[in-house]
């Protein structure tokens, strides 16, 4: 079946711009997660949704970052006033229920010039 999909696969933007990254989880998965992976490192947790609500957003670096999941399926990660330090691969994962195995998408590579 279809896995987690993320769009765009690559995004290049200029410092100060606004970007949106989209995640389509596996159909039927109620839990959705965002992680960020810097070059040469493992993914780091950003935010977790159970259904429509953000159950834990403690990993978001600052208030320039916001993630939503209005209908409990697709999620969008929104970054305002991008900075060069935001450059990384943003990974989305989903699981059938909270606590189940997390399956990752291919990621969006964000480059802030």
């Amino acid at each position, binding site marked *: 079946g279809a896995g*987690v999909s993320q769009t765009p696969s690559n995004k290049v933007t200029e410092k100060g711009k606004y970007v949106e990254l989209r995640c389509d989880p596996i159909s039927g998965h109620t*839990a959705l*997660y965002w*992680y960020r992976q810097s070059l040469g*490192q*493992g*993914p*780091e*947790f950003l935010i*977790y949704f*159970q259904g429509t609500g953000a*159950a*834990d957003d403690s990993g978001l670096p600052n208030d320039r970052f916001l993630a939503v999941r209005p209908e409990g399926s697709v999620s969008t990660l929104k970054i305002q006033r991008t900075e060069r330090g935001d450059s990384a691969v943003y*990974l989305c*994962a989903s699981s059938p229920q*909270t*606590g189940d*195995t*997390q*399956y*990752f*998408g*291919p*990621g969006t590579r964000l480059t802030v010039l």
Partner: protein
Amino acid sequence: GESVGLHLPTLSVQEGDNSIINCAYSNSASDYFIWYKQESGKGPQFIIDIRSNMDKRQGQRVTVLLNKTVKHLSLQIAATQPGDSAVYFCAEHNDYKLSFGAGTTVTVRA
């Protein structure tokens, strides 16, 4: 005494040999542990997991060992193939959050 495998950032393996990748974890309360494989330009791919109440689990060509006494996890890959070349991450699962270790880059020599 029991030896603890050292985490190495890179591992070069001859095709057909067995690979052993080591990982140290930090949280004794983690409920399970997962190994992921990540190829260049792709997201992490689930390989195998093990519950904290187990010490060994086998999959297809892979075996994971868990030593809670020394907080150590290992992944053994049998008969390593060129397609096994990738970065391997261990991850601890707590409630809903994954914490990843430093990856190991495995290169398979023909």
